[in-house]
């Protein structure tokens, strides 16, 4: 096995760890939030009445303000949000990895991907 292959193995194994931890945390939060809400009979879903754009950030804020179970409700959202952030953490790690090994091309590519991810967050926020 040559040097390049060893580096790739280290990168892959560390990415694997990041994904595993992120998945576990996200899953625990999502399931916990859902089950606690279900146990308290707070889970009500009427698809017939479901409208598009019912759970935007503004509505989420109002829901959190008006409910006594805001923290528990928030767990489900937090779980989904952490799940979304797992690949972002992977890209940040990859960027740090290539930068530490002075691999300019791949550092620039990783930076490009990260910037586009940030851009999507900005676009999403602007469109609220």
């Amino acid at each position, binding site marked *: 096995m040559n040097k390049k292959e060893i580096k790739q193995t280290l990168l892959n194994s560390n*990415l694997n760890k990041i994904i595993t931890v992120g998945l576990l945390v996200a899953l625990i939060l999502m399931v916990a939030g859902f089950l606690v809400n279900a146990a308290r009979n707070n889970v009500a879903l009427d698809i017939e009445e479901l409208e598009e754009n019912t759970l935007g950030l503004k509505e989420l804020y109002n829901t959190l303000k008006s409910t006594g179970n805001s923290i528990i409700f928030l767990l489900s959202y937090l779980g989904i949000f952490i799940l979304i*952030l797992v690949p972002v953490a992977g890209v940040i790690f990859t960027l740090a990895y290539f930068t530490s090994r002075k691999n300019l091309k791949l550092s620039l590519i990783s930076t490009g*991907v990260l910037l586009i991810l940030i851009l999507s967050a900005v676009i999403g926020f602007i469109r609220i």
Partner: protein
Amino acid sequence: MLIFLYLFLIGLAAGLIGSIIGIGGGIIIVPFLSLALKVPIHIAIGTSIIAVLMTSLTASRIFLKKNTTNIELGLTLEIPTTFGGIIGSIAVAYLKNKVLFIIFGCFAISAGIFTYFKNTYFQNKNQRENITTTQEINTSKDSIFDSKYYDETTGKAYKYKVKNVLYGSIASLFAGLSSGLLGVGGGVIKVPAMNIFMNVPIKVATATSNYMIGITAVVSSIIYFYNGYINPFITIPVVIGVLIGATTGSFTAEKLKSSQIVIIILTIFIAIGILMFLRAFNVIAY
């Protein structure tokens, strides 16, 4: 509470079928949610993209462990893919339901045809290409994308040389667009593009595509999340179902794979496509 059982079962079926035939579950989740459970299509797509993200991350863990994923290539192709994802996610808010149903119908039929070829033609082609590529790599200079992988089925390591990155980038742009627009992974575009245009072995293409799908899904997810298209009460049961289905499917995939099953899946996808067309033109209400 029965509705959550249905949502869970849809996720379970999507995860199971998806892992058996090697696609994300999005193409199954969106039609089931929108046609069978009457979930608004924008929310169905939002749910699907989170399920696709979960499937991608779960599968990526396995591929990263085996060192099959080409991260350098994946990250490079992610730049056009994420751009496509942004465009698709923004466009979805301006498209009418009818148009979305039509686009999804076309995509489902194309995906069915791809799945058929992936499990027949591409696998045979891959065996031949690996031998050629291993010989070529010794006489040509390595690029940052060239790599090698270990094939468990043959017990051999194969080197491969990546070419035509530009063509792959164009295909990736369309894959990102479909992901943002329809809530699917886009692997049905990326995998054959990498294999045919870029000389990437099918197993590496599948692993790299899986890694990319996770990052692309982030772009769409953030925009869908902000726009209120992700409802946790719908998403969580589906995601849990997908996770269990995909895990179960990955253990049974090898035993179940056969040309007959591929033909059945092809029929299901074409049926989904036709149903989406019928829904678009109000031939079926729901």
